[in-house]
Protein backbone atom coordinates (compact mmCIF):
# COMPACT_ATOMS: atom_id res chain seq x y z
CA UNK A 1 0.00 0.00 0.00
CA UNK A 2 1.16 3.49 -0.75
CA UNK A 3 1.97 5.70 2.21
CA UNK A 4 -0.79 8.13 2.98
CA UNK A 5 -0.30 11.54 1.38
CA UNK A 6 -2.83 13.99 2.69
CA UNK A 7 -4.54 16.52 0.49
CA UNK A 8 -4.60 19.91 2.10
CA UNK A 9 -6.33 23.08 1.04
CA UNK A 10 -5.09 26.39 2.33
CA UNK A 11 -7.45 29.32 1.93
CA UNK A 12 -5.04 32.22 1.74
CA UNK A 13 -5.73 35.90 2.04
CA UNK A 14 -4.44 37.73 -0.99
CA UNK A 15 -2.84 40.45 1.08
CA UNK A 16 -0.82 38.37 3.48
CA UNK A 17 -0.68 34.61 3.32
CA UNK A 18 -0.85 34.33 -0.46
CA UNK A 19 1.95 36.87 -0.76
CA UNK A 20 3.89 34.99 1.90
CA UNK A 21 3.45 31.83 -0.16
CA UNK A 22 4.90 33.60 -3.18
CA UNK A 23 7.67 34.89 -0.98
CA UNK A 24 8.45 31.32 0.08
CA UNK A 25 8.74 30.63 -3.63
CA UNK A 26 11.13 33.42 -4.39
CA UNK A 27 13.24 32.28 -1.46
CA UNK A 28 13.07 28.72 -2.85
CA UNK A 29 11.92 27.37 0.49
CA UNK A 30 10.55 23.85 0.23
CA UNK A 31 7.29 22.75 1.72
CA UNK A 32 5.19 19.67 1.06
CA UNK A 33 3.33 19.66 -2.29
CA UNK A 34 0.28 18.40 -0.43
CA UNK A 35 -0.75 21.97 0.28
CA UNK A 36 -2.94 23.50 -2.45
CA UNK A 37 -3.64 27.17 -2.14
CA UNK A 38 -6.97 28.81 -2.87
CA UNK A 39 -6.71 32.57 -3.04
CA UNK A 40 -9.37 34.65 -1.31
CA UNK A 41 -9.55 38.44 -0.97
CA UNK A 42 -9.70 38.20 2.81
CA UNK A 43 -9.73 35.30 5.22
CA UNK A 44 -13.09 36.69 6.34
CA UNK A 45 -14.46 35.65 2.96
CA UNK A 46 -13.99 31.98 3.68
CA UNK A 47 -17.48 30.67 4.26
CA UNK A 48 -18.22 27.83 6.65
CA UNK A 49 -19.78 26.09 3.68
CA UNK A 50 -16.55 26.25 1.70
CA UNK A 51 -14.71 24.51 4.47
CA UNK A 52 -17.45 21.94 4.95
CA UNK A 53 -17.62 21.27 1.22
CA UNK A 54 -13.88 20.73 1.08
CA UNK A 55 -14.13 18.11 3.79
CA UNK A 56 -17.15 16.59 2.17
CA UNK A 57 -15.16 16.23 -1.00
CA UNK A 58 -12.52 14.39 0.90
CA UNK A 59 -9.85 16.91 1.74
CA UNK A 60 -7.75 15.73 4.66
CA UNK A 61 -6.96 19.08 6.14
CA UNK A 62 -7.84 22.72 5.69
CA UNK A 63 -6.27 25.82 7.03
CA UNK A 64 -7.40 29.37 6.68
CA UNK A 65 -4.50 31.77 6.56
CA UNK A 66 -5.18 35.40 7.36
CA UNK A 67 -3.27 38.46 8.43
CA UNK A 68 -1.79 39.01 11.84
CA UNK A 69 -4.08 40.43 14.50
CA UNK A 70 -4.76 44.07 13.91
CA UNK A 71 -3.27 43.93 10.41
CA UNK A 72 -6.29 42.88 8.42
CA UNK A 73 -6.55 44.88 5.24
CA UNK A 74 -10.28 44.94 5.87
CA UNK A 75 -10.05 45.78 9.57
CA UNK A 76 -11.26 42.60 11.20
CA UNK A 77 -11.88 39.92 8.57
CA UNK A 78 -9.21 37.75 10.13
CA UNK A 79 -10.90 37.91 13.51
CA UNK A 80 -14.19 36.84 11.95
CA UNK A 81 -12.39 34.05 10.16
CA UNK A 82 -10.88 32.83 13.43
CA UNK A 83 -14.29 32.71 15.04
CA UNK A 84 -15.75 30.90 12.07
CA UNK A 85 -12.99 28.34 12.15
CA UNK A 86 -13.79 27.64 15.80
CA UNK A 87 -17.44 27.24 14.82
CA UNK A 88 -16.72 24.82 11.99
CA UNK A 89 -14.31 22.85 14.15
CA UNK A 90 -17.17 22.30 16.55
CA UNK A 91 -19.39 21.12 13.69
CA UNK A 92 -16.71 18.70 12.57
CA UNK A 93 -16.39 17.38 16.06
CA UNK A 94 -20.14 16.84 16.19
CA UNK A 95 -20.03 14.59 13.17
CA UNK A 96 -16.98 12.75 14.35
CA UNK A 97 -14.28 14.37 12.25
CA UNK A 98 -11.17 15.41 14.13
CA UNK A 99 -11.41 19.18 14.57
CA UNK A 100 -7.62 19.40 14.35
CA UNK A 101 -8.01 18.94 10.61
CA UNK A 102 -9.04 22.56 10.45
CA UNK A 103 -6.91 25.41 11.63
CA UNK A 104 -6.64 29.16 11.49
CA UNK A 105 -3.17 30.57 11.02
CA UNK A 106 -1.96 34.14 10.88
CA UNK A 107 0.84 35.21 8.64
CA UNK A 108 2.07 38.54 7.36
CA UNK A 109 3.06 39.10 3.75
CA UNK A 110 6.73 39.04 4.59
CA UNK A 111 6.70 35.72 6.37
CA UNK A 112 7.62 33.35 3.57
CA UNK A 113 9.59 31.23 5.93
CA UNK A 114 6.68 30.97 8.35
CA UNK A 115 4.38 29.99 5.53
CA UNK A 116 6.64 27.14 4.53
CA UNK A 117 7.05 26.04 8.13
CA UNK A 118 3.32 26.02 8.79
CA UNK A 119 2.67 24.12 5.56
CA UNK A 120 5.18 21.52 6.68
CA UNK A 121 3.93 21.24 10.22
CA UNK A 122 0.29 21.08 9.22
CA UNK A 123 0.96 18.44 6.59
CA UNK A 124 2.84 16.40 9.15
CA UNK A 125 0.00 16.72 11.62
CA UNK A 126 -2.58 15.58 9.09
CA UNK A 127 -0.33 12.78 7.95
CA UNK A 128 -0.36 11.51 11.52
CA UNK A 129 -4.12 11.88 11.76
CA UNK A 130 -4.56 9.75 8.68
CA UNK A 131 -7.10 10.15 5.89
CA UNK A 132 -10.28 12.14 6.31
CA UNK A 133 -12.77 9.62 7.79
CA UNK A 134 -15.24 10.52 5.06
CA UNK A 135 -12.77 9.43 2.44
CA UNK A 136 -11.59 6.50 4.52
CA UNK A 137 -15.06 5.05 4.60
CA UNK A 138 -15.45 5.71 0.93
CA UNK A 139 -12.24 4.25 -0.41
CA UNK A 140 -12.73 0.50 0.19
CA UNK A 141 -15.93 0.71 -1.78
CA UNK A 142 -14.39 2.74 -4.58
Amino acid at each position, binding site marked *: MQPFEPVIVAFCCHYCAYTAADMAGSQRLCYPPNVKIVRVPCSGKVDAIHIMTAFQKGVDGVYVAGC*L*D*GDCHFKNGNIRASKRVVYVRRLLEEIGIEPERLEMVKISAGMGERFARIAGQFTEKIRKLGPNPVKRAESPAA
Partner: protein
Amino acid sequence: MNFQKQLESKQFIVLAEMNTPKGIDVSRFVMDIRQLKDRVDAVVVPDLDNGVMRMNALAGGVLAKRQGLETLIHVYCRDRNRMALQADLLAAHALGLHNLIVAPAQEISQCDHRDAAVVNDLNETGLLETIGTLQNGKDLAGFDLEGRPEFTVGCLMTPWSDKASFEEEIKLTQKKISLGASYVVTPPVFDTGRFAQQLAVLQTLNVPIVATVFLIKSVAVARYIAANEPGAYISEDLIRRIRKAQDREIECLKIAGETVSRLRDMTQAVLIQTMGWEHRLPALLDAAGL
Protein backbone atom coordinates in the same frame (compact mmCIF):
# COMPACT_ATOMS: atom_id res chain seq x y z
CA MET B 1 -18.68 44.98 40.18
CA ASN B 2 -18.04 48.66 40.47
CA PHE B 3 -14.51 49.91 40.83
CA GLN B 4 -14.89 50.71 44.51
CA LYS B 5 -15.91 47.14 45.19
CA GLN B 6 -13.12 45.84 43.02
CA LEU B 7 -10.66 47.81 45.11
CA GLU B 8 -12.19 46.50 48.30
CA SER B 9 -12.16 42.93 47.09
CA LYS B 10 -8.36 42.97 47.07
CA GLN B 11 -8.41 41.01 43.89
CA PHE B 12 -6.00 41.78 41.09
CA ILE B 13 -7.48 44.49 38.92
CA VAL B 14 -6.60 45.12 35.31
CA LEU B 15 -7.31 48.54 33.87
CA ALA B 16 -6.86 49.55 30.26
CA GLU B 17 -6.37 53.09 29.13
CA MET B 18 -8.54 54.05 26.18
CA ASN B 19 -7.75 57.31 24.49
CA THR B 20 -10.60 59.21 22.93
CA PRO B 21 -10.25 60.07 19.25
CA LYS B 22 -8.92 63.37 18.05
CA GLY B 23 -12.04 63.92 16.04
CA ILE B 24 -15.53 62.62 16.10
CA ASP B 25 -15.19 59.18 14.64
CA VAL B 26 -15.63 57.05 17.71
CA SER B 27 -16.03 53.75 15.93
CA ARG B 28 -12.55 52.55 16.66
CA PHE B 29 -12.74 53.72 20.25
CA VAL B 30 -16.00 51.89 20.78
CA MET B 31 -14.90 48.76 18.95
CA ASP B 32 -11.70 48.58 20.94
CA ILE B 33 -13.60 48.90 24.19
CA ARG B 34 -16.14 46.28 23.24
CA GLN B 35 -13.53 43.66 22.73
CA LEU B 36 -12.29 44.25 26.27
CA LYS B 37 -15.55 43.16 27.81
CA ASP B 38 -14.80 40.44 30.35
CA ARG B 39 -11.11 40.89 29.68
CA VAL B 40 -10.37 43.87 31.90
CA ASP B 41 -11.99 45.07 35.09
CA ALA B 42 -12.36 48.65 33.98
CA VAL B 43 -11.21 51.11 31.38
CA VAL B 44 -9.59 54.45 32.03
CA VAL B 45 -10.39 57.35 29.75
CA PRO B 46 -7.77 60.08 30.03
CA ASP B 47 -8.72 63.67 29.41
CA LEU B 48 -6.77 65.58 26.74
CA ASP B 49 -4.04 63.12 27.47
CA ASN B 50 -0.53 64.51 27.52
CA GLY B 51 -1.74 67.82 26.22
CA VAL B 52 -3.22 66.63 22.97
CA MET B 53 -6.54 68.24 22.23
CA ARG B 54 -9.07 65.50 21.64
CA MET B 55 -12.59 64.48 22.60
CA ASN B 56 -13.01 65.00 26.33
CA ALA B 57 -13.04 62.22 28.86
CA LEU B 58 -16.61 62.86 29.88
CA ALA B 59 -17.94 61.95 26.45
CA GLY B 60 -15.42 59.14 26.11
CA GLY B 61 -16.32 57.83 29.54
CA VAL B 62 -20.03 57.78 28.75
CA LEU B 63 -19.34 55.91 25.52
CA ALA B 64 -17.14 53.45 27.36
CA LYS B 65 -19.68 52.88 30.06
CA ARG B 66 -22.35 52.31 27.46
CA GLN B 67 -20.34 49.37 26.21
CA GLY B 68 -20.89 47.78 29.58
CA LEU B 69 -17.50 48.39 31.13
CA GLU B 70 -16.70 49.98 34.43
CA THR B 71 -15.10 53.28 33.58
CA LEU B 72 -12.64 55.65 35.20
CA ILE B 73 -12.05 59.12 33.85
CA HIS B 74 -9.27 61.64 34.33
CA VAL B 75 -9.88 65.12 35.67
CA TYR B 76 -7.25 67.85 35.66
CA CYS B 77 -6.95 71.56 36.20
CA ARG B 78 -5.03 73.20 33.35
CA ASP B 79 -7.87 73.97 31.02
CA ARG B 80 -10.93 74.57 33.19
CA ASN B 81 -11.74 76.87 36.06
CA ARG B 82 -13.46 75.75 39.21
CA MET B 83 -16.91 76.34 37.82
CA ALA B 84 -16.35 74.26 34.75
CA LEU B 85 -14.64 71.56 36.80
CA GLN B 86 -17.48 71.30 39.28
CA ALA B 87 -20.05 71.32 36.53
CA ASP B 88 -18.22 68.53 34.74
CA LEU B 89 -17.95 66.50 37.93
CA LEU B 90 -21.68 66.78 38.51
CA ALA B 91 -22.30 65.85 34.91
CA ALA B 92 -19.98 62.88 35.23
CA HIS B 93 -21.84 61.64 38.23
CA ALA B 94 -25.21 62.07 36.62
CA LEU B 95 -23.98 60.13 33.60
CA GLY B 96 -22.88 57.26 35.77
CA LEU B 97 -19.19 58.02 35.86
CA HIS B 98 -18.34 57.64 39.52
CA ASN B 99 -14.64 56.90 39.26
CA LEU B 100 -12.15 59.69 38.90
CA ILE B 101 -8.43 59.95 38.59
CA VAL B 102 -7.09 63.36 39.45
CA ALA B 103 -4.30 63.86 36.97
CA PRO B 104 -1.52 66.39 36.66
CA ALA B 105 -1.52 68.30 33.40
CA GLN B 106 1.20 68.58 30.81
CA GLU B 107 2.96 71.96 30.57
CA ILE B 108 1.24 74.02 27.90
CA SER B 109 4.53 74.32 26.03
CA GLN B 110 4.46 70.57 25.56
CA CYS B 111 0.88 70.54 24.34
CA ASP B 112 -0.33 70.61 20.82
CA HIS B 113 -1.92 74.02 21.34
CA ARG B 114 1.06 75.88 22.70
CA ASP B 115 -0.62 79.26 22.56
CA ALA B 116 -3.68 78.26 24.58
CA ALA B 117 -4.46 80.17 27.77
CA VAL B 118 -3.57 78.24 30.90
CA VAL B 119 -6.27 78.30 33.56
CA ASN B 120 -4.97 76.38 36.58
CA ASP B 121 -7.62 77.99 38.77
CA LEU B 122 -7.24 75.02 41.08
CA ASN B 123 -4.32 72.69 41.48
CA GLU B 124 -4.43 68.94 41.95
CA THR B 125 -4.89 69.08 45.69
CA GLY B 126 -7.46 71.80 45.29
CA LEU B 127 -9.35 69.60 42.89
CA LEU B 128 -9.28 66.74 45.37
CA GLU B 129 -10.66 69.09 48.01
CA THR B 130 -13.31 70.22 45.59
CA ILE B 131 -14.41 66.65 44.99
CA GLY B 132 -14.62 66.21 48.76
CA THR B 133 -16.73 69.32 49.08
CA LEU B 134 -19.12 68.14 46.38
CA GLN B 135 -19.41 64.78 48.07
CA ASN B 136 -20.47 66.63 51.18
CA GLY B 137 -23.32 68.14 49.24
CA LYS B 138 -21.89 71.62 48.81
CA ASP B 139 -20.21 73.44 46.03
CA LEU B 140 -17.08 75.53 46.40
CA ALA B 141 -19.18 78.63 46.98
CA GLY B 142 -20.92 76.91 49.83
CA PHE B 143 -24.25 76.45 48.15
CA ASP B 144 -26.15 73.23 48.79
CA LEU B 145 -26.30 70.69 46.03
CA GLU B 146 -29.37 68.69 45.17
CA GLY B 147 -28.19 65.22 46.02
CA ARG B 148 -24.68 64.23 46.91
CA PRO B 149 -22.38 62.73 44.35
CA GLU B 150 -20.21 59.82 45.45
CA PHE B 151 -16.93 59.26 43.71
CA THR B 152 -14.09 56.80 43.99
CA VAL B 153 -11.06 59.00 43.49
CA GLY B 154 -7.49 58.15 42.72
CA CYS B 155 -4.44 60.18 41.89
CA LEU B 156 -1.55 59.94 39.48
CA MET B 157 2.05 60.10 40.55
CA THR B 158 4.41 62.23 38.47
CA PRO B 159 7.50 60.37 37.28
CA TRP B 160 10.54 60.75 39.49
CA SER B 161 14.11 60.57 38.40
CA ASP B 162 16.01 60.25 41.65
CA LYS B 163 15.67 59.60 45.33
CA ALA B 164 14.93 63.19 46.20
CA SER B 165 12.18 63.62 43.66
CA PHE B 166 10.77 60.25 44.68
CA GLU B 167 10.55 61.35 48.31
CA GLU B 168 9.02 64.62 47.22
CA GLU B 169 6.44 62.78 45.18
CA ILE B 170 5.63 60.43 48.05
CA LYS B 171 4.98 63.41 50.28
CA LEU B 172 2.72 65.01 47.74
CA THR B 173 0.90 61.75 47.23
CA GLN B 174 0.38 61.38 50.98
CA LYS B 175 -1.26 64.74 50.95
CA LYS B 176 -3.50 63.73 48.05
CA ILE B 177 -4.49 60.60 49.95
CA SER B 178 -5.35 62.66 52.97
CA LEU B 179 -7.60 64.70 50.70
CA GLY B 180 -9.53 61.69 49.51
CA ALA B 181 -7.50 59.80 46.94
CA SER B 182 -8.13 56.17 47.72
CA TYR B 183 -5.59 54.66 45.33
CA VAL B 184 -2.57 55.84 43.41
CA VAL B 185 -1.43 55.22 39.87
CA THR B 186 2.33 54.97 39.39
CA PRO B 187 4.33 56.16 36.39
CA PRO B 188 5.08 53.47 33.78
CA VAL B 189 7.02 50.50 35.11
CA PHE B 190 9.50 49.14 32.59
CA ASP B 191 11.73 47.24 34.94
CA THR B 192 9.86 45.36 37.63
CA GLY B 193 13.10 44.63 39.47
CA ARG B 194 13.76 48.31 39.97
CA PHE B 195 10.14 48.91 40.75
CA ALA B 196 10.25 46.27 43.49
CA GLN B 197 12.81 48.38 45.32
CA GLN B 198 10.49 51.37 45.35
CA LEU B 199 7.46 49.34 46.17
CA ALA B 200 8.22 49.13 49.89
CA VAL B 201 8.01 52.91 50.08
CA LEU B 202 4.91 53.04 47.91
CA GLN B 203 3.22 50.54 50.17
CA THR B 204 3.62 52.84 53.14
CA LEU B 205 1.00 54.99 51.46
CA ASN B 206 -1.48 52.35 52.62
CA VAL B 207 -3.72 52.57 49.59
CA PRO B 208 -4.00 50.25 46.60
CA ILE B 209 -1.16 50.78 44.12
CA VAL B 210 -2.03 50.77 40.44
CA ALA B 211 1.15 50.19 38.45
CA THR B 212 1.19 51.57 34.92
CA VAL B 213 2.41 49.35 32.12
CA PHE B 214 3.32 51.23 28.97
CA LEU B 215 3.36 49.34 25.71
CA ILE B 216 6.61 50.03 23.90
CA LYS B 217 5.91 49.73 20.18
CA SER B 218 9.28 49.91 18.58
CA VAL B 219 12.96 50.23 19.27
CA ALA B 220 12.85 53.91 18.41
CA VAL B 221 10.10 54.53 20.94
CA ALA B 222 12.02 52.58 23.57
CA ARG B 223 15.12 54.64 22.94
CA TYR B 224 13.19 57.87 23.06
CA ILE B 225 11.51 57.05 26.33
CA ALA B 226 14.72 55.87 27.91
CA ALA B 227 16.33 59.15 26.94
CA ASN B 228 13.51 61.54 27.69
CA GLU B 229 11.28 60.15 30.43
CA PRO B 230 12.66 60.87 33.87
CA GLY B 231 13.25 57.67 35.77
CA ALA B 232 12.21 55.37 32.94
CA TYR B 233 14.68 52.55 32.87
CA ILE B 234 14.76 50.46 29.73
CA SER B 235 17.61 48.03 29.61
CA GLU B 236 19.77 47.29 26.60
CA ASP B 237 18.72 43.68 27.03
CA LEU B 238 15.14 44.64 26.47
CA ILE B 239 15.99 46.60 23.34
CA ARG B 240 18.07 43.72 22.09
CA ARG B 241 15.17 41.42 22.72
CA ILE B 242 12.90 43.52 20.50
CA ARG B 243 15.55 43.76 17.81
CA LYS B 244 16.12 40.03 17.75
CA ALA B 245 12.46 39.12 17.66
CA GLN B 246 11.07 37.65 14.51
CA ASP B 247 8.00 39.76 14.88
CA ARG B 248 8.74 42.89 16.78
CA GLU B 249 5.17 43.91 17.27
CA ILE B 250 4.32 40.63 18.93
CA GLU B 251 7.47 40.79 21.00
CA CYS B 252 6.55 44.25 22.26
CA LEU B 253 3.12 42.98 23.24
CA LYS B 254 4.76 40.05 24.99
CA ILE B 255 7.07 42.31 26.92
CA ALA B 256 4.18 44.42 28.15
CA GLY B 257 2.20 41.27 28.91
CA GLU B 258 5.03 39.84 30.94
CA THR B 259 5.37 43.06 32.87
CA VAL B 260 1.69 42.86 33.69
CA SER B 261 1.96 39.30 34.91
CA ARG B 262 5.01 40.10 37.02
CA LEU B 263 3.19 43.02 38.61
CA ARG B 264 0.35 40.73 39.49
CA ASP B 265 2.21 39.53 42.55
CA MET B 266 3.43 42.97 43.45
CA THR B 267 0.53 45.38 43.23
CA GLN B 268 -3.21 45.25 43.45
CA ALA B 269 -3.78 46.65 40.03
CA VAL B 270 -2.20 47.50 36.71
CA LEU B 271 -3.12 50.14 34.19
CA ILE B 272 -2.14 49.26 30.66
CA GLN B 273 -1.33 52.15 28.34
CA THR B 274 -1.20 51.23 24.70
CA MET B 275 -1.41 54.77 23.29
CA GLY B 276 -3.12 54.07 20.00
CA TRP B 277 -2.76 50.33 19.93
CA GLU B 278 -5.87 49.65 21.96
CA HIS B 279 -6.92 47.11 19.35
CA ARG B 280 -3.93 45.03 20.37
CA LEU B 281 -4.99 44.84 24.00
CA PRO B 282 -6.52 41.36 23.72
CA ALA B 283 -3.22 40.04 22.43
CA LEU B 284 -1.39 41.84 25.20
CA LEU B 285 -3.73 40.35 27.79
CA ASP B 286 -3.20 36.93 26.24
CA ALA B 287 0.52 37.44 26.63
CA ALA B 288 -0.07 38.41 30.24
CA GLY B 289 -1.94 35.17 30.77
CA LEU B 290 -5.12 36.99 31.69
